[in-house]
């Protein structure tokens, strides 16, 4: 009998708790719904801010990629003239470099079938579907994906210089992190004397970036050319980044702060080259092995 009464009361008790809970949810459903949705969105926002690779809902997405491709198809007509000029310039430069434009100056020569050189970088052309310049962190969507052989960590350049690095690849599209992004630094050197540092963007202006880590004792001139250093295993050596417009000595840390005018006009990029470093895996593996062995 006692047992029965006990269970009866606990049932009523349970009933009361449940009813109160339901009343609570009914009364505050607005607040609860808000908190649930907001926490979800904030989680997405913050996690994507912390790690650049975890952007799950980016525009490499099939649907948005398709829409941007359609828009670009029409928009490209407006830039045809400019693009042709760039291609023409590029072609002239390349024609100047091929063998047929050189004349051998010696009396006799022997043709070498070269086994000394192996190809390290392979180039591939692509088109930009979406680009932004005015956000604190800018990304670029490219119309080639894993189906066309694009991989993560490929370099993105155009005829004018460095543009960015591929960070995420889907089947037919890929997303690159632009040089105009606070989350990357590109290893660069001063062409004249070989001192190297890294180029980062300060988020101010799409035409300028900052070159850091050049020691105070180096002699600099306004107009010095900045190129990639080739140390990063992503960019080949000597790709143009920009030229020095201003520099000042930092009294605190013995390094210059150098303002670099970027050679690429980020407001107007359409066609790009993607560069794959064929020896990258080997290089990274070796570097890792050394670190593991010595530490």
């Amino acid at each position, binding site marked *: 009998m006692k047992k029965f009464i006990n269970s009866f009361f606990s049932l009523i008790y349970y009933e009361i708790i449940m009813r109160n809970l339901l009343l609570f949810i009914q009364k505050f459903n*607005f607040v609860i*719904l*808000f908190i649930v*949705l*907001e926490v*979800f969105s*904030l989680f997405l926002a913050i996690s994507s801010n912390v790690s650049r690779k975890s952007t799950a809902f980016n*525009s490499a*997405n099939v649907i948005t990629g398709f829409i941007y491709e359609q828009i670009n198809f029409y928009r490209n007509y407006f830039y045809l003239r400019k693009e042709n000029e760039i291609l023409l310039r590029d072609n002239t430069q390349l024609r100047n470099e091929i063998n047929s434009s050189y004349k051998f100056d010696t009396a006799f020569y022997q043709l070498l079938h070269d086994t000394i050189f192996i190809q390290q970088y392979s180039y591939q052309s692509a088109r930009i579907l979406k680009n932004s310049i005015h956000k*604190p962190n800018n990304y670029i969507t490219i119309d080639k994906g894993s189906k066309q052989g694009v991989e993560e960590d490929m370099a993105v350049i155009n005829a004018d210089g460095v543009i960015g690095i591929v960070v995420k690849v889907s089947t037919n599209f890929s997303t690159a992190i632009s040089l105009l992004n606070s989350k990357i630094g590109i290893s660069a050197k001063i062409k004249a004397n070989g001192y190297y540092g890294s180029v980062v963007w300060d988020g101010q202006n799409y035409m300028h970036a900052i070159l850091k880590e050049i020691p105070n004792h180096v002699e600099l001139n306004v107009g010095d050319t900045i190129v990639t250093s080739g140390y990063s295993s992503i960019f080949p050596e000597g790709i143009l980044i920009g030229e020095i417009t201003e520099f000042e000595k930092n009294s605190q840390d013995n390094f210059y702060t150098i303002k670099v005018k970027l050679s690429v006009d980020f407001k107007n990029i359409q066609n790009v080259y993607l560069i794959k470093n064929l020896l990258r895996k080997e290089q990274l593996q070796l570097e890792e092995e050394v670190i593991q062995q010595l530490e």
Partner: protein
Amino acid sequence: MTANLLFKNIFIFILLVMFQVLVLNNIQISNLGITPYMYVLFIVLLPFETQSWLTLIFAFVLGFIIDIFEDTPGVHASATLVMAFSRPLVLNILQPRDGYEAGTLPRIKFMGFYWFVKYTVMLIFVHHFVYSILDIFTFRNFHLTLLEIIITTAFSSILVILSQYFIFRKN
């Protein structure tokens, strides 16, 4: 909401998303990086009687779609949600002495120009504040960020108010 009204709102929804993604996102005012966000107009124009939870759902879906196009996961969604959350509060503050009449909508025609400006600027400021903080993700140079928020709010508000005279004249 009746089926007819829901249908009309979905049409406005799609129109605003398209306009934001295809036109406004390509606009940049000055080097500060100011893009007007007009898509919030959808939340602003919802009828007074809209259930608040429905406003939240609309806000979330709207923000999320803009996020997908802008590559900013969760940022627009958070900002639009906070804005939708504060809408009942703003409506409460701006309530006329004898409450909102049945059958009126938050439009200039019903509520007057000054009421609409106050209402729009308050809501859009909340949205842009949350958006900028999350997007820039730092409190460094806060005065610059604040300036940016104020200028963007001004531009978006002007767009929203102008839209009342040119596009949404009939309703």
